[in-house]
């Protein structure tokens, strides 16, 4: 069925550049005019892309990685000035008219965008959109185009393409939509596929599926892929070559192993050191090395290394001139650093470029868990939403079981990581806890006091003890309120006088690494990491005992993320806090949490201390989740085999009978009929693993499996 998709012989062995490059970018510059002056978003990007090769472009937000890709496609707005050269198989693309570029876009160069919902037109069916992508570039009969569209849907792994062909984008899940985008991208056998953060908006198990789909799409078409991402893990297993961008320029390029194992630029070293890692056994509390400061403004960049202000090994030469992209030694890859020779020769050991921050220990760490006070106890918590139909008279047609009986407890000075994909009920759980009222079923207790029995005044008192930090620091700060007022708000609400509150605000700002005079600024004057620090300060204002962290770092860049994680770690130790840390990123949880609970479809399927859950995960879902995480380590990434889960998370309105994971369970598939009956009919309860102190699983056939 897929035979005629192979336009050119797609050779899988892609790493060797053979012959002439398919896409050659030389000295690309992009400048935007703005009121503040010219913003030099891209300052000299060059690369060659050979057929079948995958080039990863890694950088943080604002590094110019997306803009350089848009410039290749000629999709930048009119106020952008683009210079340099972009050659597609020897043909110059810069300076082509929009009409001529339209013939190239989608045919020779295809694009996969980050947000598949806004990249698809909501009013046309998915099938029609693929047919359009096909017929716009070549003459095809209606039937032929339809046949080919079905074929493409099949290739990218959409089950039952004939039925799905007629669906609209909103009827697809995020992962499915991204598959459709890939189908459209490969529809005309492009020579180059540009992927702009194709998996950033997706859950980790879906990300693994999409990367797999991209890989097979590439093998079929033999196209070269330009993969733009901020995630060093995604690139490690996927790319052949990597280019690290900073302040509009590539600062280091080379084969993927070179970059990961022999970095020669402090920025790359910092990025690699700031990622929390899954695999590093015994390093549970090894602090991350954050890169201090923020990237420079792209207006009026001086002739100096743009990284100099954040670099721990800067010398006077770094201030004097911007370093060229040159190899550090005869057998090294190009990097843009004045001290590359020292890094190459080992005068400066790579591990010691960044000083390791010291995270204080708390006295509580020495106390065994069983002797500590429980601060938050949740028992059999359920939250069901009625599903209503009808315009005038609402009738109940179903129930969304968002949270369906979960129990956990957090003890003093402890961090519990609550992990799960979107839609598993994490957020609902948090909201139920924070409402501090009697839940629909089950109980919530803070310091042994039932939330259900509280009077209004007691509930108000209890709010002092339990506070929250939200995911998006921009959304959770009132844009029209100076940050000093925002931090003082909980204090004023709980009756502090203005003077006392002002003093406390200064103290809190210092505690989170900001300055007291920042109090009179609006949130927009701060960077993302600083805003999240402000949110932490606000949460800590009333000296709570429990802080609920709802994905506190997932909206931040990697290098900033590390600083916030270290801060949270430090505050926990200093103030004896307990955290409920909700995240979808297991590596972050591995780094910060003492215990972890894995949620699936409103239930906790596995809970235990971090070491046992991560080393011997015994629920198939945990195993799949762990194996789906890309490691920032190319060699291990190549050796790993992934457990790919089929399909998407089922809707919580339609929970399967028996074990709710069985539809997607690889273990269920390998069971015999007698055993399957048990999974189908019996809802597994969560039971302690025999022989392990703190580890419980809800699976009939639980068995440990090392996957990381």
């Amino acid at each position, binding site marked *: 069925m897929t035979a005629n998709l192979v336009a050119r012989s797609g050779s899988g062995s892609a790493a060797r550049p053979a012959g002439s490059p398919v896409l050659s970018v030389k000295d690309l510059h992009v400048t935007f005019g*703005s*009121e*503040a002056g010219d*913003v030099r978003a891209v300052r000299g990007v060059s690369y060659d892309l050979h057929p079948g090769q995958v080039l990863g472009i890694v950088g943080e937000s604002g590094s110019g990685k997306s803009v350089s890709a848009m410039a290749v496609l000629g999709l930048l707005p009119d106020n952008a000035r683009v210079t340099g050269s972009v050659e597609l198989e020897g043909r110059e693309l810069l300076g082509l008219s929009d009409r001529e570029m339209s013939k190239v876009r989608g045919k020779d160069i295809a694009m996969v965008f980050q947000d598949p919902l806004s990249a698809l037109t909501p009013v046309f069916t998915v099938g029609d959109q693929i047919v359009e992508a096909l017929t716009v570039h070549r003459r095809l009969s209606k039937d032929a185009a339809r046949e080919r569209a079905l074929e493409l849907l099949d290739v990218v792994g959409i089950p039952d393409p004939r039925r799905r062909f007629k669906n609209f984008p909103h009827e697809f899940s995020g992962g499915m939509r991204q598959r459709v985008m890939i189908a459209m991208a490969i529809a005309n056998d492009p020579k180059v596929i540009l992927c702009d953060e194709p998996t950033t908006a997706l859950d980790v198990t879906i990300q693994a599926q999409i990367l797999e789909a991209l890989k097979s799409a590439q093998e079929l078409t033999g196209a070269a892929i330009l993969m733009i991402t901020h995630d060093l893990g995604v690139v490690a297993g996927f790319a052949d070559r990597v280019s690290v961008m900073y302040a509009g320029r590539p600062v280091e390029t080379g084969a993927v192993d070179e970059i990961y194992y022999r970095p020669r630029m402090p920025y790359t070293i910092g990025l690699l050191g700031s990622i929390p890692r899954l695999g590093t056994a015994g390093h549970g509390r090894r602090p991350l090395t954050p890169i201090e*400061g*923020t990237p420079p*403004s*792209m*207006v009026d960049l001086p002739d100096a290394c743009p990284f100099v202000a954040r670099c721990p090994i800067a010398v006077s030469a770094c201030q004097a001139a911007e370093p060229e992209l040159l190899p550090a030694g005869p057998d090294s890859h190009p990097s843009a650093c004045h001290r590359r020779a020292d890094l190459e020769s080992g005068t400066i050991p790579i591990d010691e470029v960044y000083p390791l921050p010291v995270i204080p220990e708390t006295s509580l760490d020495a106390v065994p868990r069983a002797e500590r006070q429980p601060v938050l106890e949740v028992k059999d918590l359920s939250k069901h939403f009625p599903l209503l139909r009808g315009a005038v008279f609402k009738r109940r047609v179903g129930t969304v079981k968002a949270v369906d009986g979960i129990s956990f407890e957090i003890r003093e000075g402890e961090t519990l990581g609550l992990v799960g994909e979107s839609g598993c009920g994490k957020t609902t759980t948090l909201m139920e806890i*924070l409402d501090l009222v009697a839940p629909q079923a089950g109980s919530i207790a803070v310091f042994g006091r039932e939330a259900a029995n509280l009077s209004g005044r007691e*509930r*108000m008192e209890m*709010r002092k003890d339990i*506070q*929250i930090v*939200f*995911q*998006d620091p921009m*959304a*959770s*700060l*009132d*844009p*029209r*309120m*100076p940050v*000093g*007022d*925002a*931090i*003082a*708000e*909980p204090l004023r*609400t*709980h009756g502090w006088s*203005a*003077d006392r*509150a*002002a*003093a406390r*605000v*200064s103290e809190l700002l210092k505690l989170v690494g900001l*300055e*007291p*005079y*920042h*109090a*009179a*600024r*609006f*949130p*927009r*004057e*701060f*960077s993302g990491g*600083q805003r999240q620090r402000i*949110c932490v300060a*606000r949460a800590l204002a009333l000296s709570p005992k429990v802080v609920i962290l709802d994905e506190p770092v997932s909206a931040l860049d990697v290098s900033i993320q590390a600083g916030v994680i270290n801060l949270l770690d430090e505050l926990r130790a200093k103030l004896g806090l307990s955290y409920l840390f909700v995240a979808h990123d297991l590596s972050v949880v591995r780094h910060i949490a003492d215990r972890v609970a894995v949620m699936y479809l409103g239930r906790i399927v596995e809970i235990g201390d971090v070491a046992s859950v991560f080393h011997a995960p015994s629920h198939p879902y945990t195993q799949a989740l762990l194996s789906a995480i890309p490691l920032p380590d190319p060699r291990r990434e190549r050796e790993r085999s992934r457990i790919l889960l089929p399909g998407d998370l089922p809707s919580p309105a339609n929970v399967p009978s028996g074990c709710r994971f069985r539809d997607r369970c690889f273990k269920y598939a390998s069971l015999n009929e007698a055993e399957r009956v048990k999974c189908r009919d019996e809802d597994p309860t969560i039971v302690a693993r025999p022989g392990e102190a703190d580890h419980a699983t809800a699976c009939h056939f639980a068995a440990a499996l090392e996957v990381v």
Partner: protein
Amino acid sequence: MTIQLIDDGHTPETVGGGPVASTAAGRARLVWRRFRRNKLAVAGLAGLVLLFLFAFFGPSLTHWKAGDNDFLNTQTGPGSDHFFGTDDAGHDMFAQTVSGMRKSLNIGLLVAALSTGAAGILGTAAAYFGGWWDKAIVWLTDLFLVVPSLLMLIILSPYFQGANWIVLIPMIALFNWMITSRVVRGMTLTVREREFVRAARYMGVPAWTIIRRHILPNISSILIVDYTLNVGAAIVTESFLSFLGFGIRTPDVSLGTVINDGSTFAGTDQWYLFAFPASFLVLIILCVNFIGDGLRDALDPNSTGVSAR
């Protein structure tokens, strides 16, 4: 657009030498400081104050009263006795304009305050509390929307015959708040779902405080624009009612009635009958608009015009 991040170490927003900025009056003081940086807004504020002073102390500048007829000098141009001239009945236009302005300023500013205030309170309350509150308020809004307001005013006015002209203020406001209220409700529905409102709720901040502290500032742009437009609209509505004989009656005058009487002379050699009162109306509305613009920018941290740099 570039955002200047704050690690440059200099502190433009701090007061005096003390590094601890006051957080108590934090926002109010910050907004006032940002407002003062807008020259036009300060000019507008000063202008409005001057107009008020003029409206209340202007009568002492001349010995003529608004109702007086100077039959010896009808239809004279501006001069030393009659600053703004007289009309065909010998009314002193200066006295008429000043006394009309006193009423119109009050009517314009108060009607706008009442109707925008009602729209703000009802709109935010409906959206924030939801449920039955929402249903009741939306129902009330729609009821007022379908009733033709001018007809209602005309029907109601006999009951207030002989009453003080102050009654006009709530009457006009009563039929002027509905559309803004619906817009405000819509905007509140989106602001309400933002995380900073949730964060405030989980801190235990009372509902009305959340509305006042978080929701109203974030929808303030629409309310300010609405207020400035309402000032002009109220003055015009009042003069229209007067024209129909339901508002202010002779010998009482308002800016609206004076302009109305003079409007037929606009293009003639008795231009001063129209030009003087009309330019005062323009001045009022201009000042209010400048103040509104300045306030909007001062409240909006994204506006670049007033940030200290």
